[in-house]
């Protein structure tokens, strides 16, 4: 099974570098954000599994015999019997690496989740003191702040927060678009996806890929929420709302009061904003069913490959 660890190592390298770069540069995710999001999750999961799997498979090579690794380990011979002669320092280091990496990833997820929960708890307590409920719109609260800001706070009782600055610059249809967008985030549990990629980024800060993935996923999540909002409001209202909220503003003098969406040159993170607005103004047409099926199948294959190798190994 020498091929096992080499195969997994190749997969891990591919998923750590060329695949995410290609995916983050591809144009088709804007045409099928949900499918692309699923693929990103498969890439991240498969990347982690094959990294750990490669180390594990390499470290376990000396312990292989006709019975398989697991039964050898479980029978206890590993403890009282002699360590196989072939188990060199490299293999031991590799096994330790697998354990450390696995623990590191799991702990990072747990720490990020705990920190997020704590920060969100305090945020919610403050929001409840500082904002007032918006009449006729349950779960929505208004905060006295001049900049146009809207965001959602997920939880058992989710809250959508709007600032007075936002309500001042948007008309009724645009406001409905914002609310529909935020509710889509909450309904589709986008915060959990964002949390996982955030944790991955924190765990592997030296991987430029993790950072790229987090950004790409954040944009896809926005596009998904946009698509959901489009069912309730017209594209123009949503695009204008995005452009207005994203354009530079001055205190008390919202610069963008009556600007048509197509005149906007967004200042705030032009890449993200431009991508969202332009796909609303001139919808690129969604990806064909066959193409989406192909992407999803590749995603499943990506995750299944390291799992299959590991199962076969044990």
């Amino acid at each position, binding site marked *: 099974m020498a091929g096992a660890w080499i195969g997994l190592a190749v997969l891990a390298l591919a998923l750590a570098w060329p695949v995410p770069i290609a995916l983050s540069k591809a144009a088709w995710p804007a045409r099928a954000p949900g499918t692309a999001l699923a693929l990103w999750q498969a890439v991240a999961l498969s990347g982690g599994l094959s990294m750990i799997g490669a180390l594990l498979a390499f470290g376990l090579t000396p312990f292989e015999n006709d019975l398989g690794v697991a039964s050898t380990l479980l029978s206890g011979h590993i403890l009282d019997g002699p360590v196989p002669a072939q188990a060199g320092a490299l293999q031991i280091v590799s096994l330790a690496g697998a354990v450390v990496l696995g623990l590191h990833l799991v702990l990072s997820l747990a720490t990020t989740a705990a920190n997020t929960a704590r920060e969100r708890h305090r945020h919610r307590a403050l929001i409840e003191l500082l904002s007032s409920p918006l009449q006729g719109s349950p779960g929505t609260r208004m905060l006295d*702040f001049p900049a146009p800001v809207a965001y*959602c706070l997920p939880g058992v009782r989710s809250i959508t927060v709007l600032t007075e600055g936002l309500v001042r610059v948007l008309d009724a249809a645009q406001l409905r678009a914002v609310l529909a967008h935020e509710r889509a985030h909450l309904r589709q549990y986008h915060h959990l996806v964002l949390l996982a990629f*955030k944790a991955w980024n924190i765990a592997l800060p030296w991987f430029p890929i993790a950072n790229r993935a987090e950004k790409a996923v954040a944009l896809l999540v926005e596009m998904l929420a946009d698509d959901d909002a489009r069912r309730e409001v017209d594209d123009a209202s949503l695009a204008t709302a995005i452009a207005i909220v994203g354009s530079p503003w001055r205190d008390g003098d919202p610069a963008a009061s009556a600007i048509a969406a197509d005149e906007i040159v967004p*200042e705030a993170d032009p890449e993200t*904003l431009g991508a969202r607005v332009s796909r609303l103004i001139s919808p690129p047409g969604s990806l064909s069913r066959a193409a989406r099926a192909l992407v999803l199948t590749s995603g499943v294959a990506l995750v299944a490959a390291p799992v299959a190798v590991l199962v076969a190994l044990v």
Partner: protein
Amino acid sequence: MITLGVLERSVMNALWESPDGLSAPELGERLVAAEAPAKRRELATTTLLTVLSRLESKGFVSRSRATRPHRYHAVNSRSEHTAELMHEVLQLAPDRDDALARFVGGVSPTEAETLRRLLASRGTGN
């Protein structure tokens, strides 16, 4: 029916308006006086003390025990707290794990600078 959340908000509003702080009985008088006459009813001091100790444990209210009855102060002004929230939401605050899904994310450097200045000026004034 007044929920605990609404009562907490009224208590904080009264404390934010009182730089010298308030004792529980003074607070009760203010809250009752703020209600419309038709809705006015007594607020049990024990209820207020419960609300105050909840707010104290959350770190929003401090209690000075030098006098009897104890006086309660708001730890931060309303605008300081708003600034804290907006720093978190606009991700101007470092070392945060919670990335809140905002309607439009990504702040340009100039916009971030404007926001910082705005938040700073609002944070000091009341």
